[in-house]
């Protein structure tokens, strides 16, 4: 009986802690967003964060997209060959990349790069009193550190995903034409004939949401970190793990919302 009560109490505590944490993150996000509409605005900081996310994440996102497109073409070809549907390879590649793999894989790559970097930078600022210093210098840390990064992440991710989509399709085309024997023109025609604008747009909406989530979790974990170097390390790990899980969970939710009739 006592054991059952202990277990129930532990579950209750965990549930309360989860709800409290979710509420705190939601309030953090709302405050950061509200600063986007109130001056002063830090355009220089937005630009710096935008370049960091969009430009410096480009190589890793591009490589991921190209190889994913190549693998997808190979796998779908060998799989579809079992029921004589090899002709659908181009369609599968383009739909998979634009609807799912482009935004999700780019999101996971950016979570590893940017979520970790933001958590480490802001966490270090927290433990070295730099965030307190901002307050004493008449500067709101949420406005200065969080709001520009959130905006930059939300805008930069869709741009990265457009590039990832193009490169992913190119990867599939390369394997399709060089290894699987498709004619270049036929492969491209099959790619674009079945592609609809909504396939691309839905992926870009997902990308914007993932960009927001990755930067939000990076900023939140850094902002609330403590306990010196170990605390910053924990914040960095939490930022990557939590944003990766959220990307996968939100991907399901968004897919269900956008594609379920």
């Amino acid at each position, binding site marked *: 009986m006592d054991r059952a009560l202990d277990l129930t109490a532990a579950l209750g505590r965990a549930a309360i802690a989860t709800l409290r944490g979710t509420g705190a993150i939601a309030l953090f996000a709302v405050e950061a967003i509200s600063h986007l509409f109130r001056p002063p605005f830090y355009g220089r900081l937005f630009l710096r964060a935008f370049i960091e996310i969009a430009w410096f994440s480009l190589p890793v996102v591009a490589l991921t997209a190209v190889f994913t497109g190549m693998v997808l073409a190979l796998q779908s070809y060998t799989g579809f060959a079992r029921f004589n549907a090899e002709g659908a390879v181009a369609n599968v590649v383009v739909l998979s990349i634009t609807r799912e793999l482009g935004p999700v894989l780019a999101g996971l790559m950016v979570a590893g790069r940017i979520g970790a970097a933001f958590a480490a930078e802001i966490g270090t600022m927290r433990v070295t*009193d730099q965030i*307190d210093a901002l307050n004493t210098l008449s500067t709101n840390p949420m406005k200065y550190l969080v709001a520009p990064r959130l905006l930059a992440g939300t805008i930069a991710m869709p741009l990265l995903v457009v590039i990832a989509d193009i490169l992913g399709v190119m990867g599939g085309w390369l394997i399709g034409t060089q290894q699987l024997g498709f004619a270049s023109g036929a492969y491209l025609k099959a790619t674009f004939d079945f592609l609809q604008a909504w396939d691309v747009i839905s992926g870009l909406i997902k990308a914007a949401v993932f960009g927001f989530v990755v930067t939000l979790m990076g900023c939140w974990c850094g902002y609330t970190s403590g306990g010196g170097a170990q605390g910053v390390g924990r914040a960095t790990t939490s930022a990557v793990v939590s944003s990766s899980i959220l990307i996968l969970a939100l991907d399901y939710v968004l897919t269900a919302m956008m594609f379920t009739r």
Partner: protein
Amino acid sequence: MSGAGAPPRAEGATPKIRLRGLAKSFGPKLVLDGVDLDIRAGHSMVILGGSGSGKSVTIKCILGLITPDAGTIEIDGRDLSKLTRREREAVNDRIGMLFQNGALFDSLPVWENVCFKLLAQNRITRRAARDKAAEVLAQVGLAASVGDLYPSELSGGMQKRVGLARAIAAEPDIIFFDEPTTGLDPIMGAVIDGLIVDCVKRLGATAVSITHDMASARRIGDDAAMIHRGRIVWTGAAATLGETGNAMVDQFARGEREGPIQMELRK
């Protein structure tokens, strides 16, 4: 000189900063247990106390970085808890702070650190900020060329001086110094103390320093207060430290092991 527990009298005029019954706990740990303190305008107050005695929490409460559980904080007779956010920001605009470890922004060059507040408030252009930074750096004995370096390229003493330059650049009314000489060699400590005294006098500002360095306390303080277990246990003239007649203060000032202050060591 005031006796144990009583705040110093502010000689007629309203004190620049007045604390009454300031209390703060972190979980079960009571850090401030009713701090009463008056700080005279244009004077330099040094708050002494051992590690964990509540010195830093006291000034963080005044700066608005920590919200106290109870008590009042008045600046120029105005209760800070009753100010609107904008009024509070206006009060903070008149305050400068030198942090213990400098707390310089690593991602910005020294000149931008020094003029951060002026730039953030659009009180100066970036071009003019470089000249202003050079001028303020000269006041703390640093060459203009230091302005182009990043904080990680500076020694500990230089970081303190840049931190001091940042604290005074906007010409505040009140300046807080958190352990200004900690981690510095005695000569550099004396140099920093000298710069603090010069800068505070030049600005005519009210200074509040927290330290456990007695030599530094005597050099930079007009008044002194001793905090122990979250309460002010003595206030008086900084020049009398070591010969105050208060057993706690004298033990602390002389660094003696035996006395009324007992360190909680696990046996």
